[in-house]
């Protein structure tokens, strides 16, 4: 081993003593979790998009057909699903901008960890604005 670190490995052993790899390793840190979340949110958004194009295409069938499907969406369970969807989109959007900055901004790699927490912060602000607004719409729909 060329790196000299203290507390990472037990003397003469390759087994890490900490809970996760330390030092310059990417694994287990902000970089990995942002990557994992980017993939999971991406998959979720993609499959939603397939369904969303198909349900919107019903406007070409009949007004009644489109309204019938929309009315099945207007309940609290789907309302929570839409909240999760918007959460996934907001994370994917902000983390996507972080990825672009890492790739094209000279100081991007240096600040990738800071930018991950900026992404989380912006996400919290976005959801704090969106969730109450949306859930009021969802729950006030009931009883109509």
């Amino acid at each position, binding site marked *: 081993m060329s790196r000299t670190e203290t507390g990472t490995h037990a003397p003469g052993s390759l087994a890490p003593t900490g809970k996760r790899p330390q030092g310059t390793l990417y694994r287990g840190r902000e970089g990995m979790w942002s990557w994992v979340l980017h993939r999971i949110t991406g998959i979720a958004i993609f499959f939603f998009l397939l369904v969303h*194009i*198909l349900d919107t295409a019903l406007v070409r069938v009949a007004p009644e057909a489109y309204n019938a499907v929309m009315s099945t969406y207007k309940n609290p369970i789907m309302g929570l699903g839409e909240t999760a969807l918007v959460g996934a989109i907001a994370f994917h959007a902000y983390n996507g901008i972080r990825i*672009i900055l890492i790739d094209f901004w000279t100081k991007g790699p240096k600040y990738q960890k800071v930018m991950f927490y900026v992404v989380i912060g912006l996400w919290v602000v976005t959801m704090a604005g969106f969730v109450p607004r949306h859930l009021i719409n969802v729950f006030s729909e009931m009883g109509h």
Partner: protein
Amino acid sequence: MSTTIEAPRSPYSRAPRSRGVNWEKWGWMYMRASGLVLVVLIFGHLIVNLVLGDGIKAIDFAFVGGKWSNPFWQVWDCLMLWLAMIHGANGMRTLVNDYASHRTTRGILKGALLFSVIVLITLGTLVIFTFDPCPAGAPADLLASFCSAS
């Protein structure tokens, strides 16, 4: 036989690429360029459809009729459709390449992705531009208010 091993950090020149377009590079560029445009398009889409006015409560045929009688929203939604489907499918292609270990599985999954992209982009584009907000014979109370004006 003696083999010469270069010093580990010595600069190297890449073997000249075979001629032709570097599709992976342009795919990589596309993900970033389309991503930036999609942030604007999708956030606008969500604000107009879910946040302003009555939000999700207002979404019905008349709401869509009102939006798509305006070329601005037709172009907005069409652009969103094309950029998002290609962005999403290309992202899924990356995942298939990463996680599907058999050549046949990868072929089937990427074929399914290509198929769904072509079908849904075609369907969506046709729906946006052949849409009639005031279809003949439909009950007036389901349509946008401007339908009964004439």
